[in-house]
């Protein structure tokens, strides 16, 4: 749908816009991480911000994730609203204590007497042969651990609204953006992520899924780039007269279980698409959400189209073999039919 006076942004631009608007609105908001000031972020999400806000508020850090993420926790508890960037989510290995033992637990440990209003933004995903230390999603790892909200936008509208909501939230929010959706030319561009984005500030509620496409025959649940695979699969299925409903989770924590259940109650079939490793992950959680509630709705066993349980290989043929895509979703639907 095109709108009048439409202004399309990439996710990178919309993230930068949300950060800028919140920094203008609230001087407690500041951003820190690697390569954010002069470079404007490896994925463009702080481009131009150092010019407007200076390097006190757009801070380049040493390569010291434990220190600056831990520092964000302390600053947040002391009344600031830091946004920190972990350049690739894969790097959580060097700093996870600050994330899951401090950021995620201090509100609870204090019995709610402290707030930790911080955002941890981090890039996810592969598809461009960056191998297994620079291509993971690990959504499930973050969503599994209580105490942090987790969001993952699939388009620029949601990216801006979720960032604004995350900054205004008094709890820590992990903001996972997929590299393949950023709209950085050098990583390829998913056109579907570049959508109308209002200039004024607005929020997208954390914990609310969106119906990206309405349908009656099968529910395809996904997040981030998987939503675009699902939409493409839905087009192919529609050629054969099958109307797929695509649910864009947008938030993993809290998870909008009602929207998932309502959709499956209507369609009777469920496919979950997830670029994270298949076992113990988002796909399993979505399926459990449905089946532990009501199984008589289901006309066939649910399916997951997820990353196999192997580290991510470099060689393109191997990586592409492992990644979810529209054809695999269509094939999964066919299997549902014969099941």
């Amino acid at each position, binding site marked *: 749908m095109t709108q009048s006076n439409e202004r399309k942004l990439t996710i990178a631009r919309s993230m930068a816009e949300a950060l800028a608007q919140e920094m203008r609105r609230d001087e407690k908001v500041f951003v820190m991480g*690697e*390569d954010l*000031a*002069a*470079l404007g972020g*490896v994925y463009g999400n702080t481009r131009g911000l150092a010019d407007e806000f200076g390097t006190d508020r757009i801070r*380049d*850090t*040493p*390569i*010291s994730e*434990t*220190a600056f993420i831990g520092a964000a926790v302390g600053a947040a508890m002391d009344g600031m609203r830091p946004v920190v960037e972990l350049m690739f989510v*894969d*790097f959580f*290995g*060097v700093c996870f204590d600050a994330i899951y033992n401090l950021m995620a637990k201090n509100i609870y440990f204090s019995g709610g007497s402290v707030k930790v209003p911080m955002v941890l933004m981090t890039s996810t995903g592969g*598809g*461009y*042969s*960056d*191998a*297994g*230390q*620079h291509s993971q999603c690990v959504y499930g790892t973050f969503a599994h651990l209580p105490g942090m909200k987790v969001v993952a936008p699939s388009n620029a509208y949601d990216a801006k609204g979720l960032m604004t909501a995350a900054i205004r939230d008094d709890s820590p929010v992990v903001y996972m953006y997929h590299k393949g959706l950023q709209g950085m*030319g*050098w*990583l*390829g561009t998913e056109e579907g992520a570049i959508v109308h984005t209002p200039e004024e500030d607005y929020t997208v509620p954390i914990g609310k899924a969106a119906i990206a496409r309405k349908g009656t025959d099968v529910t395809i649940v996904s997040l981030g780039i998987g939503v675009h695979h699902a939409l493409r699969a839905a087009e192919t299925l529609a050629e054969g007269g099958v109307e797929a409903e695509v649910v864009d989770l947008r938030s993993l924590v809290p998870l909008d279980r009602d929207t998932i259940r309502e959709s499956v109650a209507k369609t009777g079939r469920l496919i979950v698409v997830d670029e994270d490793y298949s076992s113990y992950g988002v796909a399993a959680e979505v399926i459990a959400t449905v089946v532990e509630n009501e199984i008589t709705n289901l006309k066939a066993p649910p399916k997951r189209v997820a990353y*196999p*349980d*192997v*580290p991510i*290989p*470099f*060689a*393109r*043929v*191997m*990586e*592409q*073999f*492992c990644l979810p895509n529209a054809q695999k979703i269509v094939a999964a639907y066919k299997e549902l039919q014969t099941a």
Partner: protein
Amino acid sequence: MSPSRDELLWMYENMVTSRRFEEAIAKIYFEGKTPVFNMANGTIPGEMHLSDGQEPVAVGVCAHLKEEDIVTATHRPHHQAIAKGVDLKRMAAEIFGKKTGLSGGRGGHMHIFDPDVNFACSGIIGQGMGPAAGAALSRVLQKKPGVAVAFIGEGAVNQGAFHETMNLAAVWKLPFICVIEDNAWGISVSKRESTAVERNDVRAAAYGVPGHYIEGNDPYKIYDIAGEAIARARAGEGPTLIEVETYRLAGHFMGDAEGYRPEGEKDGLFEADPIPKMRARLIADGDATEAALDEIETKSQARVDEAIAFARESDDPAPEDALTSVFA
């Protein structure tokens, strides 16, 4: 400690091989990436971090190492791999993502593993430190010879793994050397903006080990200091911390426009190119003739050509090979 004539020629040859290799990789990297630069495309997809300019560090250190000694490298590993004797053909094939590559295409350029010469890599900053110290510990426990060298960038000294490993190696007196390649930049952030001390050799005091800073990207000086450190380690006297001033002639990775560099910073950098400089010195010192060096260059080029041809002609892995070799 001064290099012998043979060692000098070995060092020169490996610097040239590394440079020619990376020139070939750089050219091929853009195949399939023009007019629109998309990292996912081309003969060699993914990130590509070149080490042009940093070759003296690799050869000055590795000239003292034997096959049994251990090296851990970073996301910028080619010069070190070549100097450590990693199989060039299989490394090229790995960088192309081919079946014949060192890891059958699973690792790519940031994950070069060649157990035959005890070489390993990690793309996570600072994470070569622990494994190098652990390999050193293993040799001590097994009463086997061998020293371990962790090469890291100057940006990595601000990681916890750097401090933790330096202290561990020092208290256990491990045969371990940390070599910091100071190219002044960690992507777009300068050493000055990110590191509290001007030179990291002063940090050695915190671990009670010898520390050295080597100026001028000079292979002769690097040879000298590294030789002392490695001899100390072999004698059971414990670790050494060495930082070497070097230059990154290229961007952080290919496709980096380097807009963050102050204007003029790269002026003169190419005149300081260590390879022509070493060539001139070899001749001036009477260690080699023009003809002998020409011959080395021809030989290096031929080795590189052969490796690249091998990589090009090799088959892609089977897609489903992705599912194998997860466990031993």
